[in-house]
């Protein structure tokens, strides 16, 4: 089988809606067993790409294979081997958690261990609650459980934590870590950079229908981020002059603090020692490491509303 070593291969994929180019000639590969985070602002073509890989939409041109199978030709086979949590997952209002999972298991024709799935997603207490009585976090967890009934090789999670409170988000993260431990390939789209940083092996960033960066979160930050930012609280002009003399480029912020881009911990120590030697009082300070969020903001544009993204298209 071609590309059998990859879970997903996207090759020169294009998707157009009339004159509008939603996805513009993108290519990438997802290794088996990795957590692949797919990031991008709203309207960048993220959901369209995801739904093409999930076999919900069809590409205009290009080739997409999932587990070596062409999404255009082998939908039936692919669908049995993947599990999908769509964006804003929803289910039948008056059907309970247990019944929903049993329903999806019957549809897939597999003997799923419903109790184990509810256990994994922490839903056992809510087994007999109807869908319309569940909170957002519970609904998402049911969606994840439903995506796992057929014991899929690739799990797609489209914005699994959007709209969840911090506790609910952490619970979903725990489920995700559990999936990774069990060797599942996870294709994750998210708006939360910390989520990608925490969970993903590979991060791809899409902007205006094109992939602008793809690498591990650590390397992406290393290559693209600005320097670390040292913030010194309310220091006077002499201290500012001192730092300038050392060759740094400090800037005053509106609240009277001073920000100094630094290369690392060595620079911070040097600045503090120099101030100490000059007999200046040591100020309050804060050091921000470069992160994925900074990379994301640098590489992508502000969201635009004129691109289809999601089910309404």
């Amino acid at each position, binding site marked *: 089988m071609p590309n059998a070593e990859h879970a997903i291969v996207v090759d020169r994929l294009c998707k157009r809606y009339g004159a509008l180019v939603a996805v513009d000639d993108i290519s990438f590969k997802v290794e088996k067993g990795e957590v692949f985070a797919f990031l991008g602002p709203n309207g960048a073509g993220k959901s369209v790409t995801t739904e093409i890989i999930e076999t919900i939409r069809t590409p205009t041109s290009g080739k997409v294979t999932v587990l070596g199978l062409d999404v255009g030709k082998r939908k039936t086979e692919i669908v049995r081997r993947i599990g999908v949590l*769509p964006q804003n997952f*929803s289910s039948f*209002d*008056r059907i309970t958690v247990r019944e929903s999972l049993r329903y999806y298991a019957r549809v897939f*024709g597999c003997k799923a261990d419903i109790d184990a799935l509810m256990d994994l997603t922490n839903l056992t207490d809510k087994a007999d609650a109807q869908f319309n009585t569940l909170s957002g976090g519970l609904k998402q967890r049911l969606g994840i459980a439903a995506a796992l009934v057929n014991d899929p090789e690739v799990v797609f999670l489209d914005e699994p934590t959007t709209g969840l409170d911090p506790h609910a988000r952490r619970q979903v993260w725990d489920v995700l870590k559990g999936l990774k431990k069990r060797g599942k390939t996870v294709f994750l789209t998210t708006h939360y950079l910390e989520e990608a940083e925490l969970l993903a092996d590979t991060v791809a960033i899409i902007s205006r229908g094109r992939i602008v960066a793809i690498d591990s979160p650590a390397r992406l930050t290393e290559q693209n981020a600005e320097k670390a930012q040292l913030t010194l609280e309310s220091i006077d002009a002499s201290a500012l002059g001192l730092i300038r003399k050392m060759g740094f480029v400090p800037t005053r912020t509106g609240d009277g603090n001073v920000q100094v881009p630094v290369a690392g911990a060595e620079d911070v120590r040097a600045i503090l020692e120099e101030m100490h030697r000059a007999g200046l009082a040591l100020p309050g300070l804060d050091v921000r490491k470069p992160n994925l969020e900074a990379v994301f903001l640098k590489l992508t544009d502000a969201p635009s509303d004129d691109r289809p993204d999601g089910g309404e298209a």
Partner: protein
Amino acid sequence: MTPRIIAANLDVRLRSFYRQKSAMFFTFAFPVILVLVFGTIFTTPDHLNLDLSVQDLSRTASSTRLIDALTANETFRITQVAADVDATQYAREQKKNLVLVIPANFDAPPNHPLGQGGVAGAVPLTYVYDPSSTSVTTKIHLLDMVVAAANQTATGVPPRFKLVPASILPERYRFIEFFVPGIIAMAIMTSCLSNALNMNAELRQKGILRKLSTTPNTRADWLVSSILYQLILSAISTAAILLVSYAVFDVRLHIGAWLPLIVVVEVIAFAGIGMLLTPFAKEAESASAVANAFLFPMMFLSGTFFPVEMMPAFLQSFAKLLPLYYVNEALRAAMIFADDPATLRSVGVTAAFAAVAFAAGTFKTRWDEGT
């Protein structure tokens, strides 16, 4: 198409339906209530008010005989009006639609025909009536008949002609027998259309469709389970309507192989129409509005509540474009008249409607939300 998936879909739909009490009410209880209400109003024999006010200014043996004749066979319930009041004023004030005035010179010589004039020398019997009342015409006819009979007795001439009724309908055909097939057709249409539209809007609006399209569930699976679901609901609702009609009104209808066949054809026809209407009902809120916009004219113009023949000619022609008209025709031909050729004709037209609507609906509905 996979039977296992169809069964799973059916199970989920029936559970959802069972847990939604308002849907249960409108599907099962509402048609039954309609049958009970309309059946009671239109089949109670004395719904026609046969009160008659009589002002007897003669007060003789012959006037008493006439009043006896009027009350015989429970034709009229007589209210006597005092001699000193004005009959017209009395009718207005007491809201009586018919007052008969027997004149003082009523006790005419024998062999002198009675009547309101036209016959020379006849004694005028005046009746004061309210032309805006709908039942007064019938009462005047009855009054005429009693007076004619009294004339005959008075003159001693035997009747020359006699009317013999021969109904085109089986015995005891009443409004209720006309009404029940109409309600069966209406209940099936309503439940098919509104369930199809609401379910589709819910699936679409909530994005369940997106999830379903990433499972082995195909459009054909979903469609077949929807049809089966509608058939089960229709069977239960038809059974409930018939049970109540038999138990309460003792209806005489022919229940045979035609009934289930007509139900199946109607379900397919309206499932197809439901699919064609879904693009107009994207949200659950507009779904019921779209359904009603379609259901109400259909209900009133297709002869559900009254025969289409009562409507002006142009509306009758319009009714013949509506599928429900043919369902009604088919059900009545089968259940009231047991007329196989007529039933077959209407079933044929309905089936043609069903085939076209279903094919067009299937063609138009996209399982995938966007491609």
